């Protein structure tokens, strides 16, 4: 099928529109089946994807505004393919475990719209289409936080919206300037990202544009010091909102980094490695410490996810295939693991209407199945080998070691500090005696929660032990990306830092 | 010899008389009158340019302005009458419900 990407993008949206006429009782089954079909479609995409070919596949191109070179241009490569699958997978899992009671119809419709925008961001190869999906993704999320959130939900939702919106406007300016420069260089307007990749710009332009793109993406990631919207958003969002936000929406930022500034401005990226790395380090260590100080389980998970995003950014700026492949893989594992952690926090919140760790203790005795899965996910979050996170974290750090050993050691403290806050969370809530009477007869995981969570566990462990089917295509695309950047770079420094694979791998 | 500039200056002067009316008067009716003056002033300009450029587009604009002016009068007067019936005055200082 030629238009599988369009189908992937617009099927959830159409289904969401149809959802308005589905009756309230069957909307849940409807939502799950739509998400399931979408997920199977994405799996089919993976099956028909040629893992050995590093370039764009399933390309669709339809000129929208030819005079300005804006076209409906979609395509996936190894980097984006799996993030698309992650989006559809997390949406499906989130819908299965959905525990929202009130106004469930609108919730499911919002989620399906959100799915469209997420998939749209990851498959679009035209800057304008990318930007449109990017901004559209804010709307359902704003609605989810604002309508189903906690007490401060309006504040959190507005903060989330305005903050990320402000950032993306800066990025939009960058895009327009980029298009203009492209016009100046070639005499043709184009917003195609793959065309932009081929444009070689002088250094001073590169730096300014890099900064513009980087700010827009960094707020989404969120990089220190632009991170403060995230704890509020997580703190107020309903469980499903947090899951999607942490698992997929944050990945837009890091995905954007790999897709936009790196290949477009390789010299500026190399030039900016140090400042970016310093920010990432602050992000890793500082937010890990802040996470330790939290009293609310969900905030711990929220700050931990910021901390891990720091490692992802660091891996991206390693500028070698190990680091970038690792960081892309870490995006996936972070999506799965942090999604699962938020879901787990949501499980207990549904039962007790509180997330304060001081309210719990001894849950391991009351809810053994819950404690088991939480334990697995905590360990995955800490980056234990044979879980997905380890592969990503290990590769990211290996890659960055080549750039700066000292910074890698500092970044490596994330495995220590991560253990500190995660184990303290686990100890406070799950170990010890049952102190609060209310906790004595809490119900353990029910069927739908178990199903959702065990499938996440399964993926985490499977890809931790055998990451090859995913890592292989990612690595292929990343290797070609890195050698492309190496070819394209104009400064000597960039040529030196950007290292395509030199060690020949044995023929397979 | 009367040149285009003459007409344009005349148009400008008429326009400014209209402006004086708009700025100065507080009577809603007078505001409508002043608006007519403004429109007519521009019409003169359009017609003049049309003539000196030998292009009928200017006149076309003038026609459409006349059409707009006619509709504006119809709707405007209607609204004014409603307002007057309700408030018994046409003083625009009495309309401040849009105060921010």
């Amino acid at each position, binding site marked *: 099928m030629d238009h599988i990407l369009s189908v992937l993008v617009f099927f959830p949206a159409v289904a969401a529109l149809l959802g308005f006429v589905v009756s309230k009782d069957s909307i849940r089954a409807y939502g799950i089946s739509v998400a399931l079909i979408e997920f199977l479609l994405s799996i089919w995409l993976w099956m028909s994807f040629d893992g050995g070919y590093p370039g764009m596949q399933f390309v669709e191109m339809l000129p929208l505004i030819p005079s300005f070179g804006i076209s409906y241009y979609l395509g996936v490569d190894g980097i984006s393919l799996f993030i698309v699958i992650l989006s559809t997978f997390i949406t499906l899992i989130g819908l299965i475990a959905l525990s929202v009671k009130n106004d469930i119809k609108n919730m499911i419709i919002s989620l399906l719209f959100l799915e469209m925008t997420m998939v749209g961001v990851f498959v679009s190869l035209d800057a304008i289409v990318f930007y449109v999906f990017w901004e559209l993704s804010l709307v359902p999320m704003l609605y989810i936080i604002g309508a189903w959130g906690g007490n401060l939900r309006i504040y959190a939702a507005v*903060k989330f919206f*305005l*903050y990320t919106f402000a950032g993306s406007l800066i990025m939009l300016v960058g895009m327009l300037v980029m298009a203009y420069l492209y016009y100046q260089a070639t005499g043709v307007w184009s917003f195609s990202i793959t065309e932009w990749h081929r444009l070689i710009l002088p250094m001073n332009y590169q730096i300014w544009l890099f900064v513009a793109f980087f700010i827009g993406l960094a707020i989404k990631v969120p990089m220190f*010091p632009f*991170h403060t*919207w995230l704890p509020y958003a997580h703190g107020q969002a309903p469980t499903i909102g947090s899951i999607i936000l942490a698992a997929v929406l944050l990945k837009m930022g890091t995905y954007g980094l790999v897709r936009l500034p790196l290949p477009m401005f390789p010299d500026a990226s190399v030039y900016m490695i140090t400042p970016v790395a310093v920010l990432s380090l602050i992000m890793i260590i*500082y937010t890990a*410490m*802040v996470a*330790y*100080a*939290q009293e609310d389980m969900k905030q711990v998970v929220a700050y931990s996810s910021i901390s891990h995003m720091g490692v992802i950014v660091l891996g991206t700026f390693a500028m070698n*295939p*190990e680091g970038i492949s690792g960081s892309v893989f870490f995006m996936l594992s972070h999506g799965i693991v942090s999604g699962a952690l938020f879901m787990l926090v949501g499980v207990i919140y549904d039962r007790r209407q509180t997330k304060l760790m001081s309210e719990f203790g*001894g849950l*391991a*005795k009351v809810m*053994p199945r819950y404690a*088991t899965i939480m*334990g697995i996910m905590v*360990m995955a979050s800490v980056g*234990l*080998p*044979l879980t997905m996170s380890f*592969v990503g974290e*290990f*590769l990211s750090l*290996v890659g960055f*070691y080549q750039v700066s*050993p000292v910074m*890698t*050691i500092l970044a*490596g403290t994330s*495995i*220590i500090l991560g253990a*500190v806050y995660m184990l303290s969370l686990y*100890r406070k809530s*799950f*170990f*010890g*005696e049952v102190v609060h009477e209310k906790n004595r007869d809490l119900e353990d995981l029910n069927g739908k929660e178990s199903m959702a969570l065990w499938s996440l566990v399964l993926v985490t462990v499977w890809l931790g032990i055998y*990451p*090859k089917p995913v*890592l*292989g295509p*990612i*690595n292929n695309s*990343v290797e070609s990306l890195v050698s492309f950047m190496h070819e394209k770079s104009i400064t000597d420094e960039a040529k030196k830092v950007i290292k395509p*694979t*030199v*060690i020949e791998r*044995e023929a397979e | 010899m009367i040149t285009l500039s003459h007409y344009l200056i005349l148009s400008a002067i008429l326009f400014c008389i209209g402006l004086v009316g*708009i*700025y100065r008067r*507080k009577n809603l009716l007078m*505001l409508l009158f002043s608006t007519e003056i403004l429109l007519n002033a521009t019409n003169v300009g359009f017609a003049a340019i049309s003539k000196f450029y030998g292009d009928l587009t200017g006149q076309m604009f003038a026609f459409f302005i006349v059409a707009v002016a006619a509709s504006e009068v119809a709707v405007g007067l209607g609204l004014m009458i409603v307002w007057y019936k309700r408030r018994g005055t046409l003083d625009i200082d009495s*309309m*401040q419900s*849009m105060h*921010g």
Partner: protein
Amino acid sequence: MEAYLYTALFAPFVGSLFAAMFSNRPKNLVAGIAASTLLFVSWISSVVLLLHVAHGEVVHVKMMDWIQAGGLAIPFGFVVDQVSATMMFVVTTVSTVVHVYSIGYMDHDKSFNRFFAWLSAFVFSMMILVMSDNFAGLFIGWEGVGLCSWALIGFWYERDSASWAASEAFIMNRIADLGMLIGIFLVYWNFGSLQYDVVFSQVNGMESSILMLVTAFLFIGAMGKSAQFPLHTWLADAMEGPTPVSALIHAATMVTAGVYLVIRANPLYGEVPEVSHFIAGLGAFVAIFAASMALVNRDLKRIIAYSTLSQLGYMFVAAGLGAYWIALFHLMTHAFFKALLFLGAGNVMHAMNDELDIFKMGGLAKKMKWTMIMMTLASLALAGIYPFAGFFSKDKILEAAFATEHYVLWTTLWVTAGLTAFYSFRLVMLVFFGEERYKIFGFHPHEAYKYMLWAMAPLAVLAVIAGFFEHDFVHFVSNMLPIEEYHVSSSTFWTLVAVTLGIAVTGIAVAVFAYSRGGFSKKLEKTFIYKLLFNQYYIPKLYDDFICKPYAEISRIFWKDLDLKVVDATVDLIAGTIYKLGMVSRVVQSGNLSNMLRWMGVGLLALLLAAILYSPIR
């Protein structure tokens, strides 16, 4: 042979999964028996492999690819050579014994099944650790045993101290693991691979500075797992776990992983004498440091834990001096007698309702004859008395230190040998002999189950006879490890033996003599040195005051004062400023048409002005 290899490796895993299936159910004896049986199978496979590699053949398999990115290619590969075969033998032997023993020991515990799941999982991780053919695989096992250790120390998670100790152990190990990771990164970027054979074959061409960094960082990893100073505090606290766990993990196997790493990477360590000397020095320091703390401790298990620490120090001295086979040999003998000692301690604890204070015991020999005999045997082995296992290995270490002219090390170790003998028999005397103080506290001790004692028997036998296999062992590992004959004259040799035996016997004699008469006077407890030792040199307090508390405090400041009041407040300030500007400027929106028209006029004027001044047609 591959089949044996996979059996040895995966049998514990299957046992673990099997037990885990019942983990939330009430006690099920089948879980324990199945896990033990599977471990026995694993033991048999290990023995077969041991005999196989004794002929000098090495079994090397690649199961599948794990990570492949850029130039990095890590497979799941396993190698059974002499070193790993030895380790496998030690691990499976001790763990089989401990498994069988645990069936009795955990008899009354509600979480019986969960215990076996974790215990077998630990063995699986340990097997990965020792069998892996690359550093990344080693790291998998390394972290895996850390995880299992965490779960088993915190096994009785209701107890706050247990969960605290579990977290402490995990975090301390993580600190070291970071060092290890950095070491692995260094290996990758300098050698281009993580496979042992590839790395070791390139050692000769490497710059010594790089080798030094590699070995130093890898050793940081070893320091954490083997609880070397300054990362040693977790080991004593780890005694919160069930006693079989202490026997298996915190005495026989996991803590020796650090020593294993140094032995395994001996081609690297052999090239950098600076790091090796540091290792030896640190080992000697830890040996005496830990022994001194054991002298005064009142806690049954902690005393044994400190002795473990001390013996690990011995092993590192041997490894640091380049006598890798001695380190491995001591590792093996130590595993047998220390596990025996712990299991005996477990019997005592059972008899005393989990009481740990040795001053509340005494005279238990009458009630627990067999336990007494086995613990005394183990203590004799620990003290290094001929003909028990400890004598042979420990004596070799002292000999190596002397022969390589490291007299300071030798003296330290020699003194430590005396201390070891003293505290071992202090423990034996206070627990099994003398006044029956337990009666005051109302305990009714009883001997452990028969099969628990039978389970301990193989260890007891090994603790006695393992030393006689020294020459076979040398021959066995000679393919893998450098064997240096220390050329000391035979008179010196015998003098050394005599001096060492002498101080050990003296230590025992002092302990027996002093404690059979009711111990030392209470005045000693008032001295500074006693307090210093009893409080473990105040190091845990130091860590608590200068690391944990400040960390918590800084974290809180970062959150409350920096994140909320500076970073977030800045964002809110910007938003607030814009909002206030809006509030101020909204007055302009008076709703008065006249005013608005005038504003419009001003705007028109401004635009006209701009149009004239910046006319593009000029």
